[in-house]
């Protein structure tokens, strides 16, 4: 049994950590947090140069052709650094949708541009309140013309293109939904920025008015492609969440060692120690579930749907738990804008919703476990 990353993959993780420590300090994150930039363009360029944006994109489409395990270790470091770049939208969602369903021409057009950092992509799925469901897709596509509104769309204000879920039928079944590839610079697209929990990653409302678009994948296959994309993204996001959870735990631990109150390090009080021990427990459970997700993703195993849902739930819980208790360990200082704790709290809670909320994934997990047991 070798349920671990290889030495090469661990080396890649170290390389990514070092790179991000240098190029993505909390000070750099704050430029975006304070609204002085929409994302960190220099960092994005650097990630492209390092080959990180295209690490899982095949060489024939301009990527490094490594694989999903390599992408997982990079994702963990992106989460740890709280990187203010559209990595998850572009790499986990748009690129994966293209890899799963794109035509050769579509892949040739967009994947090399993603790998080189020239194109930012995203997925436009949600239309206001509610979790992923064919019923919640109201935006229509008639003869390749889109009409409707998507919100929130992660990184929608800076994206060059989007994968858009649209209604192409009215039977009430999953095959009513088809996907489209939309150049967001084209006519008929209106983009509005939305203030959101995590200013280091923008959210947008995108309106499509008689917007002419090209299909992505076969008509009526949209929902099954989306499900596959969300499963992959769930695993990759779980690694970002695990990275974030670990960092929040470290920050709390370090503060507990440095801070003196009542004449002692506050980390010597059991109330604080036990809080940190519990954070370690959730971070560890999340990491182990995520490793299993990585294995299923990298081998395209039949277990992927169940593994992805478990990784998603566990990592979401761990990041939220560690981020909120990191603030608690810091006390009043943790609630200031000046300290970095709130950046992780914001990111943790935004990420908990991005691919559908916890209650959605809980439901998915049980469905998938039942299917497996029935099989």
């Amino acid at each position, binding site marked *: 049994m070798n349920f671990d990353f290889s030495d090469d993959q661990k080396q890649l993780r170290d390389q990514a950590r070092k790179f991000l420590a240098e190029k993505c300090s909390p000070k750099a994150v704050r430029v975006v947090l304070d609204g002085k930039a929409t994302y960190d363009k220099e960092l994005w360029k650097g990630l492209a140069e390092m080959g990180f944006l295209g690490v899982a994109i095949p060489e024939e489409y301009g990527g490094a052709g490594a694989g999903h395990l390599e992408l997982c270790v990079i994702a963990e470091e992106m989460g740890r650094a709280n990187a203010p770049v559209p990595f998850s939208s572009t790499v986990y969602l748009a690129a994966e949708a293209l890899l799963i369903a794109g035509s050769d021409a579509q892949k040739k057009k967009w994947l090399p541009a993603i790998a080189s950092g020239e194109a930012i992509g995203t997925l436009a799925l949600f239309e206001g309140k509610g979790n992923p469901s064919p019923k919640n897709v109201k935006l229509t596509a008639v003869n390749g013309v889109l009409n409707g509104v998507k919100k929130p769309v992660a990184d929608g204000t800076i994206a060059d293109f989007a994968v858009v879920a649209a209604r192409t039928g009215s039977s009430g079944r999953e095959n009513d939904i088809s996907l489209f590839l939309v150049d967001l610079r084209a006519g008929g697209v209106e983009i509005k920025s939305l203030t959101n929990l995590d200013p280091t990653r923008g959210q947008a409302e995108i309106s499509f008015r008689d917007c002419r678009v090209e299909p992505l994948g076969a008509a009526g296959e949209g929902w099954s492609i989306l499900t596959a994309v969300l499963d992959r993204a769930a695993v990759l996001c779980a690694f970002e969440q695990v990275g974030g959870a670990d960092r929040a735990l470290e920050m709390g631990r370090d503060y507990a060692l440095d801070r003196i109150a009542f004449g002692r390090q506050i*980390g*010597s009080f059991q109330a604080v120690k036990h809080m940190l*021990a*519990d954070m370690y427990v959730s971070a*560890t*459970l999340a990491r182990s*579930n995520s490793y299993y997700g990585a294995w299923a993703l990298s*081998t395209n195993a039949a277990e992927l749907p169940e593994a992805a849902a478990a990784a998603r739930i566990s990592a979401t819980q761990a990041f939220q738990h560690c981020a909120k208790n990191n603030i608690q360990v810091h006390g009043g200082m943790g609630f200031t804008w000046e300290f970095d704790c709130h950046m992780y709290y914001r990111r943790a809670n935004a990420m908990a919703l991005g691919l559908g909320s916890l209650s959605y994934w809980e439901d998915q997990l049980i469905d998938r476990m039942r299917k497996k047991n029935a099989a």
Partner: protein
Amino acid sequence: MNFDDTPQEAEFRATARAWIGANAPRQYEEELRKSSLGRTQLKNANILEVAKAWQKKKADAGWACLHWPKEYGGRGSSPIERVIWQQEEGPFGKLSHMFIIGHGMCGPTMMAFAREEHKRKYLPPLASGEKVWCQLFSEPAGGSDVAGLRTRAEKDGDDWVINGQKIWTSGAHYSDYGILLTRTDPTVPKHKGLTMFFLDMKSPGVEVRPIKQASGASDFNEVYFTNVRIPDHQRLGEVGDGWNVSLTTLMNERMSIGAGVSTGFPELFEYCSSLMLVDGPAIEDRAVRSKLANWAVKASGLRYTSMRAISALSKGERPGPENSIGKLVAGSMIQDVATYALDLQGAAGVVSGPEDAELAGRFQAMLLRAPGTRVEGGTDEIMRNIIAERVLGLPGDIRVDKDVPFNKIPTKGRN
């Protein structure tokens, strides 16, 4: 990243599987598979006898205490082979329960500290299950604070004379030998005045009384010592060094108990899959699903955490500290799981008798046994201290009795 055996591991697995297939007591397989916390018994056989017979059979064929050296009754196997054996042994592993303390704690302590002739004499029958061992550490005055124990050992010629009381001794009523931690010098600080021995449980002056637990069952005992004589050659480690000796034992305790933790989740998932509520199947109820999902990811998280540790063993590395979470997570989880299973039964959940209760009272038995899992082998709070101090590097507790002679430490909280 893969779950495959190496060729060597695969060969070992095939050998183990073949032997178990041909030799395991198949007639008890179904009952053992269905047994869960608080309810491990066989209807038509004495489980202790079945367990001893299986252990002896394994020992005769070289399958007992796999990781021990051959000369002490083991197989000299690698840690990963031991894990593969446990996987293959499956439900029959539940028969090893009565040997866990002896094999997991007393054996390693003997191996580290006993004289060579004692190791050769006592370890092989311990491995084969012909002799059962217990561990005599906890006392009424020393649970989490084990070093606060008061059982005295006083030198008298070549012997030590023991007086005092132990408590929470698993299996003392069927044990042949025990390892015993005593106080040999009450005038020095508590950690410095301890000494470890092993003794024959049939020695004159040893009296074992079962404790009736909160669950109603009796798995543990009180053991009283009245002028019990132990020869000095049965001392383990130096006089006054008993604390360090006990740390060897306790480290092994946490590893061996943590290895086979049960969470109750498979039982609950199975139950909810067939249970009908007023509005339909329980598994289709939103609230039930949410609870199940939350426990599912804890159970899977523990499973894959131990697979990470096994992978480290497979590569010949030491597992990381992450395995220390097992008992802490599983202990409170099984209690919550049992509580919820009864909640789903409504008022009928109160009925616990095997003849009348739902699933023969499986979850009721689990609920009543569960508080013990959060205390035995280190309470939840001690486990959190260990994680905080040894894994996260936080400061140890401030110990007000650290430099105080033992006999000057207060013994009452209030007057």
